[in-house]
Every structure is written in structure tokens, then in C-alpha cells.
């Protein structure tokens, strides 16, 4: 009996593609959460398109998610080697182009976005040196990005946090800029789980099309599987970008 395992996820299962939006999910060697991210895309009514790190064809996707995991085993620095993948060059160009391709980096994806200079700062080891996995309370600080427009400003949401190198660092000038330009997208609430500067959990670029965060919205999209076995607070990341793509309003 042949048990052929696909190298990358098979997202060909028909879903409810309500919007016509096509959202790419990139897989690197060592990516873990590409399937969950693709599932979240389908749950939000869009079509998930598998993108391979070594390819250069963005397949005309309308947005891209760089999911979590340990690409290249976090060797050198988390995200440092993935940054130079052929697909990343295409994504960086598209994100900086006039079309402003929406890009979401989750966890390792966030680390890849900082290494790619799409987002400022960097991530170092958690201040307590331990891997952490918990349901994490966040505050939505900016609801005007491609990936947060379906949230209320100041709203508190709970999604999963799981990482080793999650301590967000940047110099004081960059941190002041991020705050002044309303580019802190999410803050940790109650407890800073990794020592991140100014409790920053996620940030955006100036245009608001690129967002990166350490916690995992794609693990909180379906009742029965999210935080507390019911939380679906992460789903609106994906409905936000679909809403923007179809030109809808909140």
C-alpha cells in the first residue's frame, strides 16, 4: 500500500468560498501551522492557496499569511534563513508595491517579517528562557489595519500564545515611533509573557497592510477547539482581510 505524504498541505478540499478572495499560505521547511492557517482562511469564507517557499509564483493571491513553526529549525536566528527564500522576495516586493498586498506573519511568520525588514525590531529569547504555551489575553490597539478592521479598538481578545523566542525588542526611537504612529496592533494584557518591550504582542507597517504578532489567531477560529474550548476570537483576523478585499465595510 502506498502512503504518499504530500510535502505541503493539500488545500484542495472544497470549502465555502463566499468571497472569491484567494489567500496564500506559505510553507517553509519546518513550518507547523500552515494547515491551521489554511483552515482559518476557509472558515472566513476565502480560498486558501498553498505557496511553497522555493517557488517564485505568487499565483495571483489577494493576501498572504506566513504561518508559525520553526522554519529551518530556528537555526542562526528565528526566521533568518527563511527571509532569503525566493518566495519571500516576491512577498516583500508585493507588500511594498502600490497594490499593498496584505501580509500577516504569525509567530515564526512575525520573526520572518522582521528579518525581512517589512516590520521593525526583532525577537529574542523569552526573558524567563522557557517555552511558553498558554491562552493569552490581548488588547486590540489598532483596528485600522488590513487584518484587524473587524475588531473594536480597545477590545480584549484571548488567543493562544506558544513560543520560545517571543521577546519583542527594538531601540527606544523605533518603539516611540511605533506608538506615535499607532502601529502597535496588539498588547499583552495582565501579564507580559515574554518580556516584550512595552508589552507589544503585534505591530503593523505604516500602510497597515503588513501585520505581525506572536500569538496564534488561527488556533482560535472554531468553537470547541480554541482557548477554553470555545474561544473564536482569532477568526476576525481572517474576516478582516476578506472584508477589505471585497471592499466591504465594518
Amino acid at each position, binding site marked *: 500500500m502506498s502512503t504518499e505524504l504530500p510535502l505541503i498541505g493539500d488545500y484542495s478540499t472544497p470549502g465555502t468560498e463566499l468571497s472569491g478572495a484567494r489567500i496564500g499560505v506559505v510553507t517553509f521547511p519546518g513550518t507547523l501551522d500552515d494547515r491551521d492557517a489554511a483552515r482559518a482562511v476557509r472558515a472566513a469564507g476565502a480560498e486558501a492557496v498553498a505557496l511553497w517557499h522555493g517557488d517564485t509564483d505568487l499565483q495571483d493571491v489577494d493576501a498572504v499569511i506566513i504561518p508559525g513553526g520553526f522554519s529551518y529549525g530556528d537555526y542562526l536566528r528565528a526566521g533568518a534563513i527563511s527571509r532569503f527564500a525566493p518566495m519571500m522576495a516576491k512577498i516583500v516586493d508585493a507588500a511594498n508595491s502600490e497594490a499593498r498586498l496584505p501580509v500577516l506573519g504569525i509567530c515564526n511568520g512575525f520573526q520572518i517579517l522582521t528579518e525581512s525588514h517589512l516590520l*521593525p525590531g526583532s525577537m529574542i529569547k523569552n526573558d524567563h528562557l522557557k517555552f511558553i504555551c498558554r491562552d493569552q489575553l490581548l488588547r486590540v490597539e489598532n483596528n485600522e489595519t488590513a487584518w484587524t478592521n473587524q475588531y473594536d479598538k480597545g477590545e480584549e481578545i484571548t488567543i493562544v500564545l506558544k513560543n520560545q523566542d517571543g521577546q519583542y525588542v527594538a531601540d527606544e526611537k523605533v518603539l516611540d515611533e511605533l506608538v506615535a504612529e499607532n502601529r502597535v496592533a496588539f498588547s499583552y494584557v495582565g501579564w507580559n509573557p515574554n518580556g516584550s518591550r512595552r508589552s507589544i504582542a503585534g505591530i503593523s507597517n505604516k500602510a497597515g497592510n503588513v501585520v505581525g504578532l506572536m500569538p496564534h489567531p488561527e488556533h482560535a477560529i472554531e468553537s470547541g477547539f480554541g482557548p477554553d474550548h470555545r474561544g473564536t476570537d482569532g477568526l476576525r483576523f481572517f474576516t478582516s482581510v476578506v472584508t477589505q478585499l471585497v471592499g466591504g465595510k465594518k
Partner: protein
Amino acid sequence: MPRIVVDVMLKPEILDPQGKAIAGALPRLGFSSFEAVRQGKRFELTVEGEVTEEILAQAREAAETLLSNPVIEDVVNVEVVAD
């Protein structure tokens, strides 16, 4: 074959949690003279033949673009070690 050694350290203003943990372990082994520890990375780039100025320049460029992240790290040393 000669090697080019590249040393990378976290910038002084960046807290080094690993170094801090090592500093905490030293006294438990009786090493009580060390105030602080900072941990860095050493890369060895092996070169076939002679290390020319051009190759050394390439090593410096690689050190700044891939081996270190200038946001959090400094390249503190690039030197040739003969075998």
C-alpha cells in the same frame, strides 16, 4: 585550509537572557569571580586557498547581512586564522 572567524554578540543594550542564566549557574559551581556573562556566536568560514582581500570583504558582507541581525547584534570580530 584557512578559516575566517566571525564573532557576533548581542548589542550591549539588549538584555541577554541566556547569558544571565549562565551567570546564575556559575556560583553554584564555585566560580564566584564573574560579575556578568554575555553569550555570543562564533562562525568559521573555511576558504580553499588563499584568503584575498576580496574574499575577506565578502565575509564581512555576509557577517552584516546573514550572520548577524543589525537590529539586535553587532559583528565584533572578523579575522583570518591559518591552519
